[in-house]
């Protein structure tokens, strides 16, 4: 059972890495560091998927987060007064409210993990290529409606946000 010991080791390792990078997000003053710490936290979660033999999900998570968090870094730099953290800008706001919300969230997560009936552990895992196939069938079957409506919602909100962001053009030339 050495394989499972190593799996456990790497699972704990990447889990701790994810938590550590999550803490770094709030400890740093630099917007870019903050965004990239969030990226590496998500990458560590992707690595946890890989350890748990969910290869497709892991690779997808690792791929998507790299691009999403980089774009987020760009927006943070664009809109913040102190993107480099040189002026020691305070990164946290509404501390008491966020502490309470975080505490409630933690309790809820712990309650779910303890109280939920997780059912018996899977005896065997289908190999990675079979997983991809099963996921594809799931996405084009039962879950198709959910995914399509989510995609359409995101697209609509992106177009709406872009429309709101465009400055109205003044009549008679110039912007």
């Amino acid at each position, binding site marked *: 059972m050495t394989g499972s010991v190593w799996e456990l080791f790497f699972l704990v390792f990447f889990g701790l890495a994810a938590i550590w990078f999550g803490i770094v997000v709030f400890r740093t003053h630099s917007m870019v560091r903050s965004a*990239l710490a969030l990226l590496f936290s998500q990458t560590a979660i992707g690595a946890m998927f890989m350890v748990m033999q969910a290869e497709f999900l892991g*690779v997808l998570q690792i791929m998507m987060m*790299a*691009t999403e968090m*980089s*774009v987020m870094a760009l927006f943070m730099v664009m809109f913040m007064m102190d993107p480099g953290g040189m002026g020691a800008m305070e990164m946290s706001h509404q501390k008491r409210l966020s502490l309470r919300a975080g505490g409630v969230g933690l309790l809820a997560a712990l309650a779910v993990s303890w109280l939920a009936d997780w059912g018996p552990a899977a005896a065997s895992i289908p190999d990675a290529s079979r997983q991809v196939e099963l996921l594809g069938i799931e996405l084009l079957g039962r879950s198709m409606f959910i995914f399509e409506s989510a995609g359409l919602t995101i697209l609509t909100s992106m177009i709406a946000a872009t429309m709101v962001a465009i400055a109205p053009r003044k009549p008679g030339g110039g912007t």
Partner: protein
Amino acid sequence: MSIAILLLTLTLGAYFIAVIEGWAVHGRFSLTRPALSAVALFGRESLLARTPDRLFFEAAPVLLLVAGLLAVAVIPLAPGLIIADLATGALFLNAALAYVLVALIMAGWGPNGGYAMIGGWRFLGQFIAYAMLIVMPITAVAMRAESLSTTMIVTSQADLWNVFYQPLGFVLFVLAAMGLAWLPPLDLPNAPGDLAGGVEAEYTGVRLAVLRLARMVIILALAGAIVTFYLGGWLGPWLPGWAWSVIKMLVVTTVMLTTGRLVPRVREADLLAAGWKLGIPLALANIFLVGVIALVVDI
């Protein structure tokens, strides 16, 4: 044994890419030049900019190299001659190369220099232009192979190479690959002549050597990806499989490194407009066409 062969091939490949790039840039074909430049870079002082983001500055070249190496790991040179034959190989290649973007942003932000920072953020804009054109042609390739495994993708081309099956996807993928490796005319992040080196501007000595080596590995990975996805990988008559892979990769690299220099550098805004208004509709059309052909014709 096969790992040793692969490492040797990787080292030689990266070296030859440096030789070909020297030939394309300086017009002189020299087999010793990259080795001499490497020795020179190692001998030189590696300067540190004033008030840098030290962590990003140090980590960026290493992350770039790791991203390139991980991408190379899923490229098959011959049946069985592959570092990691993942069931999700084609997607994994994307995932690894997405970190090229992260590394370049870090390299741009780290040294606290204007040119470097502009280069780094420029690459993010460039990424938004090329990213979909990497993923969508691969989708069409995977549709034909009915698998994301890179070896399965090669064997699916036994009757007809993908370059003839889906030429549109091939053209889009090669252009996007040139954007990913910031090769001319899409060399916006370092832009010799208008950004004074861009992301490379503040790097010197050993760090610059690692940065340049990483870029060679990325070009090698992309040439490998083009050969695997479109040019039939190791398939070919007479010669052994690995030889075909190597020959094809060298030809693709030479074409990528030389042809782009014949056209002027593309502006960022034009690149984004072309990518989204022309590239993505064409990539969608490619997926649709490949789907129809796969359903109707049995090849």
